[in-house]
């Protein structure tokens, strides 16, 4: 029954999001949240165990396979974006620039927040270090969707929009790297075993990716291709969940393997997966929202600090990144403001961490990051106005964002 409830809630919200009730002119913040999918996080919090309690902890436990499917899908899509040709063509300053903006935000958040985490946990400094690293990783991530939407709507130069998009794509690697590190520390009794589990996830992903490339190689029928793609994603996410390793990392390894060995097949798989990407993402963020413990006061204390420190980190990191990439990319003058939106991967990282690492710290990390992601999404709408041409107006931009996203 709980699955039916999830379905009905999401269907109702999808209809609401696509209807005229959410007019960007009247409710710009709400329209922005609906377009980015973050409204579903709020809905999840409302229906979850910590607020109305319509979905209990047990219900969420039963919905774990759906969560694993969402994480696996996100991972495969991320991995498919790791196109070797594109990555090879990028000059070194671009990588340095991406490392600069994400690394700065990482350290701005992880180091100061390590202190309260150490003092409020009984798991010792190693556990706190892993949690702080996850907060840093989530802070380092930025979403490029505002920039892409802005250039598509003609409010930003195409080159600048793409520049921002490239930088935000590369910071995903930092986030995933830190996730792997944090899982090594926290998901097993010792680091050696943790390393083994991360390697198992990657190996599983590579095997599934290679198999998926072979299975889809000669398929011409679209329905069959979609079926095999969905089955492959479910297989990699499901196998990882069954073996209690990371579905996200396994998915990334699967997608990357497919991108490397699959050739044109990878494009077709990406297209097939693109058809279910949005609904799967919405269900995932809804479930992540359900997992938030809204009554956990420590999360409310840490969240403003996270948002503030991340903002500072992005401002400084953005300036640094702009200088480093000057010779290779055309970037907007106030780059930091374009990097405020956090995007869905941050939610995936903390959801994964929460699933695999037991304890209060992992739960707290999830609470802080999920609530901060919603706040950052709202802030990003205002912040991006400093990046685009101010003469175009706030209203028009919000409207265009929503239209293109729809």
């Amino acid at each position, binding site marked *: 029954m709980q699955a*039916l409830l999830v379905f009905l809630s999401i269907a109702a919200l999808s209809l609401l999001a696509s209807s005229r009730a959410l007019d960007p002119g009247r409710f710009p913040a709400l329209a922005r949240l609906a377009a980015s999918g973050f409204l579903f996080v709020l809905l999840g919090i409302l229906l979850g165990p910590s607020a109305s309690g319509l979905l209990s902890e047990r219900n969420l436990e039963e919905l774990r396979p759906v969560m694993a499917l969402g994480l696996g899908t996100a991972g495969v899509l991320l991995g498919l974006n790791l196109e070797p040709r594109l990555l090879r063509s990028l000059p070194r300053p671009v990588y340095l620039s991406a490392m600069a903006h994400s690394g700065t935000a990482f350290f701005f958040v992880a180091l100061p927040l390590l202190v309260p985490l150490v003092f409020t946990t009984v798991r010792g400094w190693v556990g706190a270090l892993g949690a702080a690293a996850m907060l840093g990783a989530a802070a380092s991530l930025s979403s490029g969707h505002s920039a892409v939407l802005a250039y598509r709507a003609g409010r930003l130069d195409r080159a600048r929009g793409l520049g921002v998009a490239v930088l935000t794509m590369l910071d995903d690697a930092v986030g995933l790297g830190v996730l792997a590190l944090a899982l090594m520390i926290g998901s097993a009794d010792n680091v050696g075993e943790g390393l083994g589990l991360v390697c198992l996830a990657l190996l599983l992903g590579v095997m599934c990716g290679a198999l998926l490339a072979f299975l889809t190689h000669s398929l011409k029928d679209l329905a069959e291709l979609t079926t095999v793609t969905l089955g492959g994603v479910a297989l990699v996410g499901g196998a990882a*969940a069954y073996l209690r390793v990371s579905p996200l990392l396994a998915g990334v390894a699967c997608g990357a393997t497919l991108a490397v060995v699959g050739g044109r097949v990878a494009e077709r798989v990406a297209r097939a997966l693109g058809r279910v990407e949005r609904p799967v993402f919405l269900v995932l963020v809804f479930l992540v929202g359900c997992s938030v413990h809204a009554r956990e006061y420590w999360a409310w204390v840490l969240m403003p600090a996270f948002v503030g420190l991340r903002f500072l980190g992005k401002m400084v990191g953005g300036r640094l990144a702009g200088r480093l990439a000057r010779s290779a990319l055309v970037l907007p003058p106030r780059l930091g403001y374009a990097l405020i939106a956090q995007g869905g991967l941050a939610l995936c990282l903390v959801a994964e961490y929460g699933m695999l690492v037991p304890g209060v710290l992992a739960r707290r990390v999830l609470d802080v990051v999920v609530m901060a992601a919603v706040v950052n999404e709202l802030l990003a709408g205002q912040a991006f106005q400093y990046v685009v041409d101010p003469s175009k107006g706030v209203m028009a931009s919000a409207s265009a964002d929503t239209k293109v996203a729809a």
Partner: protein
Amino acid sequence: MKGAVVRLLLLVVLLAIISRAQVLRADSGTPVLLAAGALLLCGLFAGKVAKGLGLPRLTGYLLVGVAVGPYALGFIPNAGVKGLELVKGLAVSLIALVAGTELRLGLIRRVGARVALLCAAVCGATFLVCFGATFALKPVLPFLADMTMPQALAVSALLSTVVVSFSPTVTIAIVQETRARGTFTEFLMALVIIGDLLVMVAFAVAAGLTKASFGGGLDVTGLLGGVGWELFGSVVVGMVLAVGMLVYMRGVNRELPLFLVGLCFAAAEGGTRLHLSPLLVSLAAGALIANLDEHAGERIHHAIQQAGLPVFALFFAAAGAGLKLDSLLTVGPAALLLVALRGAAIWFSCRRFAPVDDPRMRRYLWMGLISQAGVTFGLAALVSRTFPTFGPQVEVLIVAMITAHELVGPVLTRRALAASGEIRTDDVQGTA
């Protein structure tokens, strides 16, 4: 076909590796998603292999499910298969929705009365044969041996009612797969659907009588209310769904396959919770749409064909994985005897009572009535839950029969359609 075999073998090897890795890993997580992904992929390629061998795809789905499932190779844990119940409900709803779009008023007027008569004859004859055989086996069947005469009669009637049931799901899936069209196909589909309704009513009556024979008293009002709610309530809810679908198709008109999957999912889950028949809900919805707006019915048909492949492959592979092969061994002789008698009764009643104007009916119709699947499973589980003293043993016997019927039924249904000449030529040759 060689490519499909290689792909299937590679998938099985990967599953073996995952299964081995799980043994080495101390704690394991939920296997539901693994079961879904593995059965979907294995089912799809096994369907291709089966088609290459001239068998229905559905047989491939079922057999590969049996092979990798918990009762054979054991690569997929039982908990994973059980977790796919939701998909089963969804598949039944989707299949029934498509079947409903075939139920035009003209067709019902044309063949309705003849189908109902034949259905009553086939069900009656099969019931009598199975009832007699079960009662005769009283000394041999452990759950009947110690019962009084009235109790044994009532339980035999209950068991025989379940044994009579057909499988609209399998029949419609085979018709969809082979794209068979024509009077024979229409007649067969109408027969299994009406047979299903008849069995639902008969089962409620038999269950009431059994309860009374065990001292529970005969609650006629409750009995009629329950049957009425299941039948008429389902039709009313189905009509509401139909109106919802038509409004969506006229108003929103985007992502129809996704919308239909969502709606059928809601119908399956909600219908079960409200003690309605999800099959009848979707059947009524499909029939109403097709009769109100023919174009909308065709669009639904097309949309489900797009979304149906993964759902059907997963549904039947999961059904195969859930088949308890061990039960076939424990109650095998009695089950096989009942399987043979049921087949003979269906064959005889079709030869005797089928319409004379079309010789194909008398020759081939019986083959389309052998399959048993979802409805029978559901009724067997209901017997087990309602009568905890003897129900589980009855369920084992029925599941053993379903196992046999699931393996031969789809092949026979396809053969019947092929023999009737209503399958598309390329499918008959197995080249499509």
